[in-house]
């Protein structure tokens, strides 16, 4: 569903992505991990054209992401994204947050949009919060609503950019549970995260990035089951992250 | 549009001399006013963070007075009204014996007006320094004055450096109001030239060029100051 072919990106002199080549197949859950500055957040933002790239190709369901602005806008209707800082719209109520793109982008009728919104809120366990405003909700609740908001457009792929990194520990699980259920329903997911427990349980593949390159790209079993056969950098990272 | 251009006008006497004199008065007004306003503003600004309700109220009233009355009106009050209210001998000295009374009045008006604005600026800067800094200073046994001098004020100054330079530019611009009480500063001189020669573009253009130059130089000075004062940042 997503193909990266020798993708390169530079921020001025800084070579942020180096020859990234990998694929995410339909129904797969791919976890992308690595130390800060490895380029993983930048990479995921290239998939829905929020970040431009200079060289190589990214194809989503066969469509080249970099081709033009209009195709990018249409592509984004099929690819949902969840951000580290939730980015709910503070001036709109929860239900309006979920309905806005439905009405404005998909041109759905207000009633239909609200119905779908309510069903999604139920699915993430926040049915009673429809009239609340984001600033009155906890981080975990806001992120679950952000997931519902992304799902409202019926995307085929869901992108997660460090969805739990800004959450207090006790709220991480409620979000991971929603993501786990989503994966079980067969959604194609690309997740940038440090949550190795989640990766182990839910991911089909793990991609390890360091300094802009894909260092490891293998199945979850291989990644966690045979750590010695992984590269030095990957072992170092795993060592640091698993021992706390 | 019928207009005869004559830029050479600006280089001829007496007009060139007028412009330079005007510039001189503008600079004198601005710098003298600033030298008085700055310490006054810092003092009132510190008062605005006081824990004493009376000091807070008094300094608040001071700021609000200079802030809610137009600068031009303040100029007239100081020039026409205050000398009348002074004790007889002081008033007489002010009106008769003081050289350049218009200049000094202008300086005082600018100084007090700007001190009000600087006070609010310093208050904001002092309050922007994280409370933990003051607590850390207290914990090592420093008294309030020491904490202010060594820890809080240096940080506050860095925070308000951009608006501070902007206030200096303001005082330069506000010096033009002194023309209403008879100080022949830059703007007044340019109007004078326009009155005499009808060459407004050249006259006002010259004044505009000077003010823009001052603004540009101030920008550069601010960037330079910020760089010199900048605290090393973790990469």
């Amino acid at each position, binding site marked *: 569903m997503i193909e990266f072919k020798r993708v390169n990106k530079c921020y001025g002199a800084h070579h942020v992505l180096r020859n990234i080549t990998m694929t995410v197949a339909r129904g797969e859950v791919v976890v992308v991990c690595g130390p800060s500055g490895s380029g993983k957040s930048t990479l995921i933002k290239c998939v829905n054209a929020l970040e431009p790239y200079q060289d190589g190709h990214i194809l989503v369901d066969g469509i080249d992401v970099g081709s033009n602005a209009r195709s990018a806008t249409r592509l*984004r209707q099929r690819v949902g994204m969840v951000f580290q800082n939730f*980015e709910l719209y503070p001036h709109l109520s929860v239900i309006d947050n979920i309905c806005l793109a439905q009405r404005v982008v998909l041109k759905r009728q207000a009633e239909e949009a609200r119905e779908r919104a309510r069903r999604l809120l139920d699915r993430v366990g926040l049915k009673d919060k429809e009239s609340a405003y984001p600033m009155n909700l906890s981080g975990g609740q806001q992120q679950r609503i952000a997931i519902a908001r992304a799902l409202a457009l019926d995307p085929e792929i869901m992108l997660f950019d460090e969805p739990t990194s800004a959450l207090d520990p006790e709220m991480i699980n409620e979000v991971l549970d929603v993501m786990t259920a989503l994966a079980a329903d067969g959604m194609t997911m690309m997740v940038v995260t440090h949550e190795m427990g989640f990766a182990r349980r839910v991911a089909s593949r793990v991609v390890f990035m360091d300094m802009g390159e894909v260092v490891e790209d293998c199945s979850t079993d291989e990644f966690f089951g045979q750590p010695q056969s992984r590269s030095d950098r990957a072992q170092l990272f795993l060592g640091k992250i698993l021992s706390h | *549009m019928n207009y005869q251009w004559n830029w050479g006008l600006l280089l001829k006497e007496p007009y060139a001399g007028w412009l330079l004199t005007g510039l001189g008065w503008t600079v004198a007004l601005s710098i003298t006013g600033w030298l008085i306003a700055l310490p006054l503003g810092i003092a009132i600004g510190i008062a605005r963070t006081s824990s004493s309700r009376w000091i807070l109220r008094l300094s608040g009233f001071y700021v609000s007075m200079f802030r809610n009355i137009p600068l031009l009106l303040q100029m007239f009050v100081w020039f026409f*009204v205050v000398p009348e209210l002074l004790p007889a001998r002081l008033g007489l000295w002010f009106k008769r014996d003081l050289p350049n009374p218009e200049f000094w009045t202008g300086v005082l008006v600018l100084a007090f007006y700007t001190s009000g604005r600087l006070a609010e600026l310093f208050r904001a800067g002092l309050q922007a320094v994280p409370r933990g800094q003051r607590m850390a200073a207290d914990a090592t046994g420093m008294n309030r004055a020491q904490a202010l001098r060594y820890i809080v004020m240096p940080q506050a100054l860095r925070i308000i450096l951009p608006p501070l330079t902007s206030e200096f530019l303001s005082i330069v611009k506000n010096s*033009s109001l002194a023309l209403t009480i008879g100080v022949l500063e830059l703007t007044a001189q340019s109007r004078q030239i326009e009155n005499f020669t009808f060459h407004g573009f050249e006259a006002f253009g010259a004044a505009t060029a000077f003010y*823009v130059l001052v603004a540009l130089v101030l920008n550069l000075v601010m960037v330079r100051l910020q760089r010199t004062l900048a605290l090393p940042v973790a990469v």
Partner: protein
Amino acid sequence: MPDYALIVRNASFLFDGLLLSLTLTLVGVIGGFAVGTALALVRLFTGIIGNYVVDAYVFVFRAIPLILVIFWFYFMVPLILGRPVGAWTSATVAFTLFEGAYYSEILRAGLKSVRAGQLNAALASGMSRAQALRYVILPQAFTAMIPIFLTQAIILFQDTSLVFVVSLHDFLTATTIIANRDGRLIEAYTFACLVYYLICLAATAGVEKLKRTFAR
């Protein structure tokens, strides 16, 4: 002996002056807002050159004194129109263009104050830039900007006193006229101070209240 009856005798003259000050403020606010918005749009939708032009405009208007601006337009407007115009016309042009520079900066700061992530989130759900601006960015920017706009309007109200230099009869000029005519400087100026003080104090308090309502 202070003679405050002076004020009563000249009440209607002073009141007309106050009306002129307020009208000039209103014109400056509305016109300035229009010019500021136009400048902001130029910034948003043109490339580097457009931005530099707007930057230059804003820089110059913010670098020179308002009195100089008033003199400029008092001199320039009749020249451009080819016929004499009154102080009122040239003053309104001067104030509109002057305020426009300040309002455009307020708009720019307001738009910048909205978190970058909000734009990303809106775009990520397939909205066009225009839709993102309209539904997500602008509503948030306006709530931030309105108190600052109003404060700028209060500053403008005080600045209208500068039309003294072109003998337009605003409140301050009217005050100076009756002060000199009747020789009663102290009473006249004290009264003017009181009026300005009360109006600006009340207006500022109103803005503070508005700010508190917005922070719901």
